C-alpha cells in the first residue's frame, strides 16, 4: 500500500507544474472580462491598466499613439479606422491575414516596408484592453532610448562578432548576419546583411527588432534567451556606427581574384619544389626495361 500511495503522490506532484500555468492565465482573463462588463468605470480602469502593461511590453517599440510613424503606423484613431474584430485578428497574426489576401492587411504590409509584425500572444480580451488603453486620447510613445556610449559601441561590436557573449546566452549576431566593416571579419550569410540597417529602420526600428524579433528563426533563437536592454543599446550603437562608417569601410571583395591568386601561388610553389628537388630520383631505374616488356592486358 505504501508503494501505491507513493505512486499516486508522485503522479499528482508531476502533474502540478504543467497544469497550473495553463489554468493560470485563463482564470484572471475570465474574471477580468466579467469585471469589465459588471463593474463599469472601475472595471475600465483595471482594463486600461492591463492594456498599458501589454502595450508597453509588446507594442510601444514599433508604434506610437499620436507620436507619428515609427516602424509601424501611428495608432491614434485606429479604433475608428478598423473594426475591433479586424484589429484583434491582425494583432494575433498579421501574416495569416496577408496570406489570406485581406486587402487592407496587404496594403499595410507593403506600405510599411514589408516588415513582419510579430504575432502577439494575446487573447481577444487582452487585445481589447490594449485598445481601451490606446484609445483614451493620451499621446503614447516609448521613452527615448539612451544613446550608446563609446564603450557600449565597442561592446556592441564584440557582441556582434561573438567575442563577447550575450548574458542570457543568445546566439551571436555574426553567426547569421554580416556587416561591411573593417572591424568585422567574415560574418554569416544566412540572414540579412546589416550594414545599412540603421538608416533603413532607424534606431527605434532596430531596437524594436532586437527587443522582440519578428522573424520566425530569430524569434525561436532568442525566445528563451532575450537580449538585455544594455545589450540592445550596445548593438544599436554599433550598428549605427557601422552605418555611418560604411563609406569609409568597404572591405574589398576579391571574388575570382582570390581563387586565381591561389592557383598562381600553387603553381609557383610547385615550380619552386621541382627546381629545388630537380635532382630527385624519378621512378624505377628499370623503367626503360619495363616499358619494353609485353603485357598480358
Amino acid at each position, binding site marked *: 500500500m505504501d508503494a501505491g500511495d507513493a505512486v499516486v503522490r508522485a503522479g499528482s506532484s508531476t502533474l502540478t507544474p504543467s497544469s497550473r500555468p495553463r489554468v493560470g492565465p485563463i482564470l484572471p482573463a475570465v474574471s477580468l472580462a466579467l469585471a469589465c462588463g459588471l463593474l463599469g468605470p472601475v472595471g475600465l480602469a483595471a482594463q486600461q491598466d492591463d492594456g498599458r502593461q501589454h502595450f508597453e511590453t509588446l507594442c510601444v517599440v514599433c508604434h506610437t499613439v499620436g507620436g507619428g510613424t515609427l516602424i509601424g503606423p501611428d495608432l491614434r484613431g485606429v479604433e475608428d479606422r478598423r473594426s475591433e474584430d479586424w484589429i484583434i485578428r491582425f494583432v494575433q497574426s498579421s501574416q495569416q491575414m496577408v496570406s489570406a489576401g485581406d486587402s487592407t492587411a496587404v496594403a499595410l504590409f507593403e506600405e510599411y516596408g514589408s516588415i513582419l509584425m510579430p504575432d502577439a500572444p494575446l487573447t481577444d480580451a487582452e487585445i481589447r484592453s490594449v485598445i481601451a488603453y490606446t484609445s483614451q486620447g493620451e499621446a503614447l510613445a516609448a521613452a527615448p532610448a539612451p544613446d550608446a556610449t563609446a564603450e557600449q559601441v565597442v561592446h556592441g561590436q564584440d557582441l556582434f562578432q561573438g567575442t563577447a557573449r550575450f548574458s542570457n546566452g543568445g546566439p551571436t549576431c555574426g553567426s547569421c548576419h554580416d556587416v561591411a566593416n573593417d572591424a568585422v571579419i567574415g560574418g554569416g550569410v544566412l540572414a540579412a546583411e546589416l550594414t545599412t540597417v540603421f538608416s533603413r529602420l532607424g534606431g527605434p526600428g532596430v531596437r524594436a527588432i532586437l527587443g522582440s524579433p519578428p522573424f520566425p528563426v530569430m524569434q525561436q533563437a532568442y525566445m528563451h534567451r532575450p537580449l538585455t536592454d544594455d545589450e540592445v543599446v550596445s548593438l544599436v550603437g554599433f550598428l549605427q556606427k557601422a552605418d555611418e562608417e560604411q563609406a569609409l569601410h568597404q572591405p574589398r571583395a576579391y571574388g575570382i581574384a582570390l581563387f586565381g591568386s591561389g592557383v598562381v601561388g600553387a603553381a609557383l610553389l610547385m615550380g619552386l619544389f621541382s627546381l629545388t*628537388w630537380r635532382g*630527385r*630520383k624519378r*621512378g*624505377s*631505374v*628499370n623503367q626503360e*626495361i619495363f616499358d619494353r*616488356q609485353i603485357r*598480358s592486358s
Partner: protein
Amino acid sequence: MDVRSQISMVFHLDKCIGCHTCSIACKNIWTDRKGAEYMWWNNVETKPGTGYPGKWEDQDIYKGGWEKDGDSIKLKGAGKPKSLTNIFHNPHMPVIDDYYEPFTYKYLDLIESAAGDVQPTARPISMITGEPMDIKMGPNWDDDLSGSPDYARNDPNLKKLSPAEQEAMFEMERMAFFYLPRICNHCLNPACVAACPSGAIYKRGEDGVVLINQDVCRGWRMCVTACPYKKTYYNWSTGKSEKCILCYPRIETGQAPACMHSCVGRIRYLGVMLYDADQIEAVASADEVDVVRRQMEMILDPFDPDVIAAAKANGVADSTIDSAQKSPTYKFVKEWNLALPLHPEFRTLPMLFYVPPLLPVMASVTDVDHTEQSRKINPVGKHWPDSWLYDTTTEELFGTIDDSRFPLEYMASLFSAGDTTAVADRIKKLMAVRLHRRQETVGDVKENTVAEALADTHLTPEVADAIYYLTSLATFDDRFVIPAAHREQAIEMIEFTGDTKGATGFGFMAGSAQRGA
C-alpha cells in the same frame, strides 16, 4: 685504444655456386611475412650485373653512404638538414620496382579447375595487391648473365673501365661471371645508424650487430637511403624498417646464422675480431685509396698482450678474446690478407669481407689446327668448323692475372675502391696456394715456379697449407667460431634485473598483467 669486439664475416667467392640456398634459408626464417615479401636480407647477385635493388652501387642515384667533408665525413643523402627538408618525401629511395613486385602463383587453379579442353595454368599473383599480374622483375632476374644487355652491361662498376675494356668483357669467348652473396655488413661506421631521426638503429655493444628497434622506429626510411648497400628495407605492412639481424637469436645460442649454416658451398666464415674504435672517424675520413689499408690496420691482433689488456679493461669477456684468437675471419682478413670489404669507398667500414674470386681461370683463345683431331672423331660426332682453342693452360701464371677476363679494375672497383694492387695481391696469393697444392697432390708443376709464387706472395708452404685447410677442409666449428653471448651481462648493463626478481614470475620483460595473467 678503445678495444671492442665485432662479429665479422668472410665470404669466399671462389666457392660460391650461386644456388641461393642462403637466400631461401633467410627468407623462410625471417621475411616470410606480410610487408616483407619483397625483402631479401640475404641475396645472391651475378657480377657483372645491376643487382638488387637495381644499380644499388650507383650512389649518384641512391645517395647512400658517406662522403668526405674536409677532415671528416658526412652522410651523402641524409643527415640533419637533408633529413629535415626531405622528411615527408625522401626522393632518393628505391621504389618497389627497383626491387621487384613480389609474386606467387595461383597453384590451386591447377588442381581445382573444372575439366576442360585446355590445361589449367597457375597465374602469377601479386603478393602486394593479391591481383593477377605480369611479372616484370625478380630479385635475381639477371642471374647467370641473363638479360646481360640490360643488366650486366649497366653494372655501375663498369664506369671505371674504358669502352674497349668493357667490350672485351662481353666478347663471347671471354664472357664470365661470378656470384656475389650479400647480407648486411654490420659496419663499424654504419650510415643507417647515423641517418635514423628516431634513434631506433643501434650497434650492439657486445658483438657489433646492427639492429633496428621495432618499438622506436617511426618509419622515416632515412636508413633505406643512407645504407649504400640497400640492406635496410621498409615493411609496408608494419610501417617500420627492417634489416638482417645476423640471426642474433641463433648466435646467442651458439648457432651459425641460417644463411651460413645452410651454405652449400661452405663459402661463409664467421668469427670475432677486435678493433680499435678510437680510429673509426679517422679511418672513415681517410683518402679513398687508403680506406681499405687503414681499415685493416684498425683490426687488432688478439694475441697482442696490450690489446688483450685493453680489451679486458673495456669489458670484453675472456671467452670473446679467446674466440677472437681462433677466429677464421681474423686469419682471412688480417693474418693472410686474403679478403677485402665490398665497396670500401662508401666509408661505412663494412665488416663482411670477400675473398675475391680467382675463377674464372684465366684463359686464352689460340689458333690451332683441328684437322688431326677431327680425323679421330666419328663422322656423326661434333666437328668444330673453326680453328680456335679455348685454352686454360698458361705458361706465365702471374702474367695472365693482369689480362684476366675480369679486368683488375673491375675487381678493384668492387673490393678496394679502385686499388688494383690490393686485389692483385690477393689473387696472386690464391694462385700461389693453388700451385702449391697442385704440386703437393699432382706434382706436375715446376718446383721453382711454386717456390717463386710463394716467395712472391710472402707465403710459406705451412701458411699455404693452412689457407688450403680453412678454404677446403674446414669443419663446421672451424668456419664458425661463435663466442658466448653473455646476454645476462649485456642486460645487466642496461637495467637492474633485481627490479623484476620475485615480482613477475615467468618472463620478465612484460609484467603479469601485460601477459594477461
